[in-house]
Each structure stands twice: as structure tokens, then as C-alpha cells.
């Protein structure tokens, strides 16, 4: 079966209807296990003390903030190239989820930064690129809301998404590009020596899985709503003409 069959709204609704309860269940399971293990089952760090427990929400939220935009980028490219409406609506559905993830990463980072760095905020490369990414999310959502014609809105938001992708990538690699920032490097890496200690690593991996499952659940739910809303608007328009 071709992947493009899922671009058919009816097929997408059928498949997502079956997937949604499983994704929601997986989210609940992973987040419950990961957070309980992380918060109650790991020791305080020598250098960060109890604030290390913020890692279980800060890192997964930051991960999803960037990857939500990358998912929107792929969906936008599919829209621009193949004109599949479901992909444009999926990108629209993902934006508020990505925006909230970015906000969580910024807020939890600030709460952690105050006692550890002695400041809520610094114009550090990673923090600044995340703030810009947050503003891009706001702009993307506002642009969708501002344009009545759905195809024009999808075209323009797709172009905005392409431009914003620079900042999504930048926020991931800002620490490597500029070495003068406060923010430390990646907490997780394929190189075992760069990773956080195993005692934090395993619950963190589960929390990251939980946030990914949460993102998929919310995007499926919201895309279904967008598809229904598109049909509703079409019926309303048809009803007015009759």
C-alpha cells in the first residue's frame, strides 16, 4: 500500500481513529513511568542538586519544539509539491503543540537557570534561537488565522515554515556554532561519554518517548478536527449557495 493513500482524508480519518486510543494510552504509560522514575527514583546530582529533575520535562519539550517544526516542514513540502490537503492541515494542527513545547522548554529552562546560572534569562545562542523559534510558531499560527482562503493560507504558511526551519535547526546546533553561550551541550548523544549518567539517562529516554507519543496523539486529534472543520466550512459554503 502506498504512503500517499493516507493523504486521502477519509482514509486518514479511518486509520487515525484506530491509532488514537493506542497513542493516548502509550503517552499515559510512558509519561507516568518516566516521570515517576525520574522524579522519585533518581538521586540529586552533585553539581545541580534537585534541579536535575527538571531535565525530564525540559529536554523532551525542547526535543519536540524542534522536531515539531521539522515535521511541519516535511508536511509543508508535501503540500507545496503534491498538494495533499491532509499534509497542510497536519502542519497547521502541529503548530500549537510545537509552540507549547517551545514555551515549556523556555519556562523550565528559566526556572532552572535562575538558581544555577544566577539569571532567568541570558542572550545565549540557544536561548535566543529558541525564543525566535517561539515567535515563528506564533507568526505561523497567526498567518493561518489571518487568511480566509485555505489554499492561499497553506501556501503562505508553508513558505514561512521553510524560512523558520533555519531557526529550528539553529536552535539544535546553536551551542556548537557559538561556543560562548551559557547553555551546555546536548544531554543525549550517540557518544556514550557525552551522555548524562545512566541513572538519569534511562528515565529521560522514557520521558522523551512519552513526549513523542504525546505529540503524535495531539497532532492526530487536531488534524482530525481540522479535516472535519474543512468539511464543515465546505458544507456551510454550499448551503449558502443553495
Amino acid at each position, binding site marked *: 500500500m502506498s504512503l500517499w493513500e493516507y493523504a486521502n482524508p477519509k482514509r486518514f480519518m479511518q486509520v487515525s481513529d484506530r491509532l488514537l486510543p493506542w497513542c493516548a494510552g502509550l503517552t499515559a504509560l510512558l509519561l507516568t513511568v518516566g516521570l515517576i522514575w525520574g522524579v522519585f527514583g533518581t538521586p540529586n546530582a552533585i553539581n545541580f542538586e*534537585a534541579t536535575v529533575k527538571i531535565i525530564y520535562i525540559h529536554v523532551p519539550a525542547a526535543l519536540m519544539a524542534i522536531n515539531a517544526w521539522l515535521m511541519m516542514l516535511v508536511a509543508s513540502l508535501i503540500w507545496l509539491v503534491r498538494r495533499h490537503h491532509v499534509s497542510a492541515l497536519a502542519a497547521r494542527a502541529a503548530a500549537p*503543540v510545537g509552540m507549547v513545547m517551545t514555551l515549556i522548554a523556555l519556562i523550565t529552562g528559566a526556572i532552572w537557570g535562575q538558581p544555577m546560572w544566577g539569571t532567568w534569562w541570558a542572550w545565549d545562542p540557544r536561548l535566543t534561537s529558541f525564543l525566535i523559534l517561539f515567535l515563528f510558531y506564533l507568526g505561523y499560527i497567526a498567518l493561518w488565522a489571518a487568511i480566509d482562503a485555505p489554499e492561499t493560507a497553506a501556501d503562505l504558511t508553508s513558505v514561512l515554515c521553510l524560512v523558520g526551519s533555519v531557526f529550528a535547526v539553529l536552535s539544535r546546533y546553536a551551542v556548537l556554532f557559538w561556543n560562548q553561550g551559557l547553555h551546555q551541550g546536548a544531554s543525549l548523544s550517540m557518544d556514550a561519554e557525552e551522555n548524562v549518567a545512566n541513572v538519569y539517562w534511562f528515565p529521560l529516554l522514557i520521558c522523551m518517548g512519552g513526549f513523542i507519543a504525546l505529540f503524535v496523539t495531539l497532532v492526530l486529534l487536531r488534524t482530525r*478536527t481540522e479535516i*472535519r472543520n474543512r468539511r464543515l466550512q465546505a458544507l456551510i459554503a454550499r448551503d449558502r449557495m443553495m
Partner: protein
Amino acid sequence: MFDLGKYAAEVAYAYAATGLLLAALLGVSLHRARRVHRALTAMETRTQTKGRTDG
């Protein structure tokens, strides 16, 4: 093992803020999903009824 010490407030604020934001996102998403579903069902029923009446 569970002792947050002098940073208990910071950890609690971080989790509370995250919980609030995620709950708000989930609440808004579910509320809109139900509202649109109800409106679409009503509209489809109306369109079908109208079609039968016109036909």
C-alpha cells in the same frame, strides 16, 4: 532518595507550569474537537434532510 532540598520550589514550579500548559493544550484541543464534530454532524444531518425534502 526523594529529597528536593533547597530547590524544591524550583522543581515544583517547573512541573506545575508544564502541567498547566499541557492540560490547557489538551483541554483546548478536546473542546474544539467536540465542538467541530457536533457542528459537522448537525450540518450533515441538515444537508441530508434538505436533500430529501428538495428531491
